């Protein structure tokens, strides 16, 4: 015991020594860095005086100090300011925050990270401190990235807009109009207001007319950008609907089986993605984590397909030709699957989108396209192409189509219809798994996941016309697009109601959907 305490004491002492050494070394470096970073630094005493004034009781002295330091804008002050903040009371901390933000943003203007540069430029613009203009102009000169340049230019113009010189204001307003800057609209409107006041001078009016022109320019652009974004959102929602209902449509069309467990097969796919992610976390180096999603897609397809095979063999194969019973049985299976997932996984599981799928790309001014949506659109196109190839360009597809058209005749000609059924069902289930995998990019993974989407998928399949691939595609585009068209003006709740009403009305006109199956077998 005694010995161990002794050694602990020694350890402690040597640790303290080490810390002291580090501390001395650190202060030395800081002392050495000070003059090296800023060779032409102003007399230290002024800055020190201002730093001392920061903690002053007197409000005006404090404000003057903040102003002085902010004009000086020396980033190396940041460390000292942090030290002051840590020991200061609340009013000083409040006064320090904008100053420190400004200094931090100045440093970040030359950060290697594009997003950081960009947000630093935007923050400097919205902070309204004209002292930042020279920094921004300096940063603009060697900025390679297009959208960072845009943010810097916008910020410079925004700061100039707040100046007192009308000529500067007019150039800034014109520039902002050219930039189509949505951020400038409130400030421009204010100028417009000032110009229309009774007491406005000729200069004010000149500024106001420049502001009016700029606002018009921005508004016209905004309506175009809005239209473009609506179209993108419509396509994005449509592709989600499509990817969910493809499997359902194939199974429904081929076998006449109303698979109520389709949503739960999506859930199986989503959990397969989750498990893949956990495996990557547990067994692979962190660098490989970003690629888990590529692995999880085939994994969720296979897992869901196996589930589908089992479901077909154990439940559906006994109930062919009895659609109502199949519906009930698969409904039961879906409840079992939900509870099983709840018992095994609990109600909370999160899938972390890989870094290459989070964030988005700026397509043009005011239009920002998230990567995950783009990915899902591409994935749905891939799925449709895959299905088309499989159905119309392979021997298996030929058999599937033959069985769909005339089961008895195909059977007579030696096609093993039972096998075709089983494989088609597994394939449809696998597609549901892929859909579930894609959905983890948007929502969360929970046992009720399938229930959220199953109504939408059925709506698409029925509207499209049962068993028609083309119908499913057109219906999902129509429903998704219409939804996004209605949502901005009606809100999420009423647009959903409206869509349902429209679908009901449509089905009364055309009970068999958009694309009806023509020919003799239609009523068999």
């Amino acid at each position, binding site marked *: 015991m005694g010995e161990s305490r002794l050694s602990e004491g020694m350890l402690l002492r040597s640790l303290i020594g080490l810390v002291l050494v580090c501390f001395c070394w650190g202060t030395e470096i800081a002392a050495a860095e000070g003059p090296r970073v800023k060779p032409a630094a102003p007399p230290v005493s002024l800055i020190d005086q201002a730093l001392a004034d920061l903690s002053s009781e007197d409000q005006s002295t404090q404000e003057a100090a903040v102003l002085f330091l902010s004009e000086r804008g020396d980033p190396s002050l940041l460390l000292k300011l942090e030290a002051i903040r840590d020991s200061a009371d609340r009013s000083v901390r409040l006064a320090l925050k904008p100053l420190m933000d400004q200094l931090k943003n100045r440093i970040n203007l030359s950060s290697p990270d594009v997003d950081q540069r960009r947000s630093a430029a935007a923050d400097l613009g919205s902070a309204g401190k004209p002292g930042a203009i020279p920094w921004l102009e300096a940063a603009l000169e060697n900025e390679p990235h297009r959208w960072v340049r845009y943010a810097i230019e916008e910020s410079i113009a925004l700061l100039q807009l707040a100046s007192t010189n009308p000529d500067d204001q007019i150039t800034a307003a014109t520039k902002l109009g050219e930039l189509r800057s949505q951020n400038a609209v409130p400030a421009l409107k204010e100028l417009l207001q000032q110009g229309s006041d009774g007491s406005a001078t000729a200069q004010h009016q000149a500024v106001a007319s420049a502001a009016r022109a700029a606002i018009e320019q921005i508004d016209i652009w905004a309506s175009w950008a809005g239209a473009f974004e609506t179209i993108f*959102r419509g396509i994005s929602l449509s592709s989600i609907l499509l990817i969910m209902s493809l499997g359902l449509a194939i199974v429904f069309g081929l076998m006449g089986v109303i698979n109520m467990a389709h949503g739960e097969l999506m859930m199986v796919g989503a959990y397969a993605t989750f498990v893949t992610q956990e495996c990557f976390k547990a067994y692979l180096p962190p660098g490989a984590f970003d690629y888990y999603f590529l692995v999880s897609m085939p994994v969720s397809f296979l897992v869901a397909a196996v589930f589908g095979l089992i479901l077909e063999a154990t439940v559906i194969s006994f109930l062919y030709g009895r659609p109502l019973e199949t519906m009930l049985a698969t409904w039961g299976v879906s409840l079992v699957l939900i509870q099983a997932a709840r018992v095994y996984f609990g109600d909370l599981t999160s899938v972390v989108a890989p870094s290459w799928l989070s964030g988005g790309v700026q397509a043009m001014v005011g239009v920002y396209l998230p990567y995950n949506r783009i990915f899902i659109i591409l994935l749905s196109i891939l799925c449709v192409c895959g299905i088309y190839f499989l159905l119309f360009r392979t021997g298996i597809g030929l058999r599937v189509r033959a069985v769909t058209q005339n089961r008895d005749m195909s059977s007579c000609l030696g096609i093993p219809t039972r096998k075709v059924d089983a494989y088609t069902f597994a394939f449809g289930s696998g597609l549901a798994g892929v859909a579930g995998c894609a959905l983890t990019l948007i929502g969360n993974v929970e046992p009720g996941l399938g229930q959220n989407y199953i109504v939408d998928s059925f709506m698409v399949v029925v509207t499209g016309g049962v068993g028609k691939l083309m119908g499913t595609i057109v219906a999902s585009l129509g429903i998704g697009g219409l939804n996004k068209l209605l949502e901005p003006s009606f809100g999420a709740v009423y647009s959903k109601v409206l869509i349902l009403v429209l679908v009901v009305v449509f089905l009364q006109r055309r009970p068999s959907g958009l694309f009806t199956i023509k020919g003799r077998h239609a009523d068999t």
Partner: protein
Amino acid sequence: MTTAAGSSRREFLAQSGRVVAAAGVASLLGNLGGWALSYAADKEPIKIGILHSLSGTMAISEVSLKDVVLMAVEEINAKGGVMGRKIKPVVVDPASNWDLFAEKAKQLLVVDKVAVVFGCWTSVSRKSVLPVFEKNNGLLFYPVQYEGEECSHNVFYTGAAVNQQAIPAVEYLMSKEGGGYKKFYLLGTDYVYPRTTNKILRAMLLAKKVPAADIMEEYTPFHHQDYQTIVGKVKKFAAGGKAAVISTINGDSNVPFYKEFANQGLRAEDAPIMAFSVAEDELRGMDTTALVGHLAAWNYYQSVDTPQNKKFVADFKAYCKKNNLPDGEKRVTDDPMEAAYFGVHIWKQAVEKAGSTEVDKVRKAVYGSKFLAPGGEIKMDEANHHTNKPVLIGEILKDGQFKIVSRSKGLVKPEPWSEYTSPDKGCDWIGHQGTYQKKA
């Protein structure tokens, strides 16, 4: 004939005597038995009900409340129970189905005859069980913040009223310290809590001279997953700065909302989201990298630095591990869990003070009672069935915990009727027997 008659009479008398004696003995025995039974009943466990959705859209939040109530019960039982009697919980699952809530509440009160019920999260579930509790004179401890405008004899509200969460949160956002925000996007799930809260907040903002054009209001259905359009609108609204989102989105819709918010390039610095229904437990199920810097307003956080909270957090983790609950030691505590937890203890204190589990006696014993909760001492109000608690604003950190950025001075007195929408109304069960009109 006569002899026969005589003998039969004698026989009859004797027989009736025996019958009387037997009856006497029987009745005595019966009394004894009854007494013995009643004695046994004293030592029988006290049944309490737990009414939380263990499935459906609200399971993401409510499962943990069930767990923490069971933990509190286990704690109390380990220390000998209430008045020497153990507590026996009856857990039911209303599955996020509001009608089922009323049915299950009735089952708890009428069939299981529980002494008290701990439960509900959404206001719609509380509203649907309210008539059941009032008709059967049951007692409900409701642990979640809510929209107010309610004053029931049969409910104790251990969560926050609007003036203990939503209003201070918006006041914070408007203050210089909070960022001086001037435009507000009120976004919620479409049901009674968000709609009423936003009605109060709108009245408050208008009273504080925020122009109506700078207040947006929008609702989505439960389970809504597609936030593309709404986030697009927020982005447009927030252009030019000084706009904040006030989120009353409930349940699992929060995940797609925050994901979309980040993916469309909006940062907390552009427009912070102040949420009233996102706590540590919801964050556990989310990818938090996108959420850093957004805000929430509650009366408790797991990061509250008190010795009793450290014990509470450690106890809960140990409880989850011991009982093999999903996620085990990785589980976290949050505000409604704390409120559910101290609700059980407040009830236990009241039962012991009243010396009975009878609802009317317990209710009186709750008034003005205090308890050293994990987040610090709280006090049940003397008259309005709500709880005096502190208000804390927190900022989301990378690990899914909250950094407390603002804290009320002391406990805030609950006001079920907001001063902005119903300045003339109050709630008082001592002087006024319920809701009353304040005299000017």
